[in-house]
């Protein structure tokens, strides 16, 4: 690769434009602070929605100290892209999570997000928060089952009408009049079920790539005609938390943001919260220095692999994937795919199952640059790659342009 090409690639991949401008000025934050305070005071007056455990005593029961909790609060404040002065508010919001009702439904899915969220990982404190979140209804976690569970969901929807956050896991199969997925004793189709549940929701949160874009069920030839929530639900604020599975920290972040501000967080053009999807895996990757130095793993298990070199040539899609795994990682922060020498597969991007999910190097993947060329090797990638990366940045630029609109939507929440 010619020197100048390499330089321009490097420039592009380090461009500030790929990142969200997080600072919105003192006046903005001062106003927001007051607003959040009022919101929290109002929430405090409400009774907790259910008889779940008190947050702080739960923390003690779990053997965590207040210091750990504050550490978590400041990390979460940073994750939500708020100034450090908001930390006490975030901490307080966490203790008020049981004032906001959440209903969780599962459609065409593998239950992986529920697994990720409610049963397996997530930093310890996130997990406890999830335990005390006022989860009014969740199909798998519900104590009741069968007809009784159905009744509970009806009641929750009626009682919290207009107030609850609806979390949706899984795609919506529209084929065969929706008969590919039915639920309950009346065999209600997933699409009808979603419409009914969304009706009284304050906002709908699509968790995971299936609920966001249709996910694996929507992979070509899309046998069940599966789509995401935003293709079905109209006239409601929608927040997408893609990735496969979605990261629990981001789910908690969305709820916390809602508790704190009464609004949904700022979104990009794909309705993803900017605090989580505002930058690329590649921007904060621990192997980035090796990318910049041109040191790549060339084959599985080689010397480069042993030295944690960059996985670009092994098909890493980090340069075109917007997500925060490189920072928050998975399974209580223990690790993440790139940490074990497997490139990112772009699981939080639309159509990743068709375009990105290839085990082979990106050069041979189906990501077509506008010139129509599909690159063969890194050494030849020049223009093609630039355009491919350009697409990622293009999306982002569009995101900023549309952000204004999304912000209007936010006010309704």
């Amino acid at each position, binding site marked *: 690769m010619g020197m100048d090409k390499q330089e321009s690639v490097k420039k592009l991949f380090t461009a500030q434009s790929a990142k969200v401008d997080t600072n919105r000025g003192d006046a903005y934050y001062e106003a927001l602070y007051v607003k959040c305070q009022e919101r929290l005071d109002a929430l405090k007056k409400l009774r907790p929605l259910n008889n779940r455990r008190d947050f702080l005593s739960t923390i003690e029961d779990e053997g965590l100290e207040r210091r750990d909790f504050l550490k978590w609060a400041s990390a979460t404040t940073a994750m939500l892209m708020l100034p450090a002065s908001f930390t006490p508010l975030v901490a307080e919001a966490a203790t008020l999570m049981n004032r906001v009702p959440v209903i969780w439904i*599962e459609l*065409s*899915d*593998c*239950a*992986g*997000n*529920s*697994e*990720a969220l409610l*049963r*397996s*990982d997530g930093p310890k404190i996130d*997990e406890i928060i999830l335990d005390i979140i006022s989860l009014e209804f969740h*199909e*798998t*976690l*519900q*104590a009741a*089952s*069968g*007809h009784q*569970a*159905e009744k509970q969901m009806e009641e929750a929807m009626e009682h919290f009408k207009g107030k609850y956050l609806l979390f949706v896991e899984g795609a919506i199969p529209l084929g065969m009049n929706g008969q*590919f*997925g*039915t*639920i*309950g*004793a009346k065999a209600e189709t997933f699409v009808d079920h979603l419409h009914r549940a969304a009706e009284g929701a304050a906002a709908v949160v699509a968790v995971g790539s299936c609920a966001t874009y249709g996910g*694996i*069920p929507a*992979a*070509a*030839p*899309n*046998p*069940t005609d599966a789509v995401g929530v935003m293709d079905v639900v109209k006239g409601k604020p929608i927040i997408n938390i893609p990735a*496969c*599975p979605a990261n629990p920290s981001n789910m908690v972040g969305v709820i916390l943001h809602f508790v704190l501000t009464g609004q949904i967080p700022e979104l990009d053009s794909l309705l993803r919260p900017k605090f989580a999807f505002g930058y690329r895996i590649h921007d904060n990757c621990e192997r980035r220095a090796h990318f910049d130095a041109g040191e790549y793993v060339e*084959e*599985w*298990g080689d010397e480069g*692999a*042993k030295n944690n070199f960059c996985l670009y040539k092994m098909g890493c899609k980090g340069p075109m994937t917007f997500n925060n795994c490189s920072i928050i990682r*998975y*399974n*209580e922060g*223990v*690790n993440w*795919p*790139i940490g*074990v*020498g*497997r490139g990112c597969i772009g*699981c939080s991007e639309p159509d990743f199952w068709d375009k990105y*999910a*290839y*085990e*082979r190097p990106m050069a041979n993947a189906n990501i077509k640059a506008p010139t129509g060329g599909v690159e063969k090797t890194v050494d030849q990638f020049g223009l093609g790659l630039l355009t491919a990366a350009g697409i990622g940045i293009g999306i982002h630029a569009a995101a900023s342009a549309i952000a204004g609109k999304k912000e209007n939507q936010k006010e309704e929440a």
Partner: protein
Amino acid sequence: MKKIKIKELIEKIEGEAELDFTIEDGRIEDVKINFGFYRGIEEILQGRDAWDALVITPRVCGICNHAHLIAAVRAIEDGYQNAGINLLLSEKAKKIRSFTLACELIQNHMKWFYMTIVPQLEAYLQIDNRQNHALKATYLSSTVTKALAIFAGQWPHSSYAIPGGVSCDPTHLDLMQAEALIDECIRFVEQVLIGMDMAQYLDISSVSQLHEVGGDLGRLMHLIGSSGMATLGQSYDRFIVFGESLLSSSGKSIATAVSKVDPRYVQESAQDESMAKAVTYKKRLYETGPLARGMVAKRPIIKSLHKRYKDALLTRIFARMHEVSLLLTESKRLLRELDLNEPSCTLDIDTRCADFEGTGIVEAARGSLIHQTEVSGGLIHRYEIITPTQWNLSHGSGDEHGIAVEAMIGSKSIQEATFIFRTFDVCSVCTTQ
């Protein structure tokens, strides 16, 4: 004689199932198991690059995704072998894969026990227990999946296994961290699940010593015994295991006689009114899963329980929970034996094979999982996924009922029958895909 039909919804499994009961004179006479759910994963795989199965198939199931990954990678490796490429995995790669699989089984069993079996039994027997069982499940499974993630990057849906080995290159520090996590799991199991020293527990070989088991497992066994439920839920007493694993080798067991199996005799067929396909071995139905593994491995305590209770729910539940201690002990041994100097992956990057047929078999939490891939010109021509639940939950074939159906027939209430149903560790997303 009065015949009535009742529909019952089964939730709290991955996805949902519907059981249509036919009840005659207060006894369950027949059951139809329906899964109203289909995604078409096998169809989606057609025409894709052979290696795409590594990313797509784990997403069949959020709870046994890792087993799918390993089955997919083995199918490709088997195909390469069949095409004449000599693939020799390093011991290190094999051991790491065994380790991560063991972790997945452990988290599954613990969740099933604490989130399904214990609460359902307490509800059925009307025992008021204020303990938060779900938290116990969460604690242990998050600890063990952390150990898994050290090698696999994340759980669920990791992709770290690749034809020829694994992509990770763990350090001694990683091993120490993993071992500390496994030790913590052992401590938890000793204190909370079995209430005794694990080594002593694993020495138990006969039913007469089972009273020594304490903890929640001991309590559960006692509840089942004292409520007269121990002998419920018997089926055909036929078991099958296709995969080689830490727990057993392959084979089938018919009323304790163990013999060899050959996956070529496995047959899949569509069923009326269900999106799940039935599967048979030489036209007969078999139970697969932990009880099958215990029987095929001729594990003394399982055989002793079987002698007294046959394939009833007590034996079935114990066999699954017994695997937790076996796997924790084995996984610790694997970590100790790991030689980090061996290569992680032995497949040369230029060795690609465009035309092959391969089968990948894995012992997953619920039993044998089989992937079959037929590749031509580098693209998948046909992909077949046969899941454990297809064995256990089919309607039946010919004049025989399905395995779980047979176990439920004769029950005196729907509640009793659904509890029996759950002892098979039901998963609807895997059954229909």
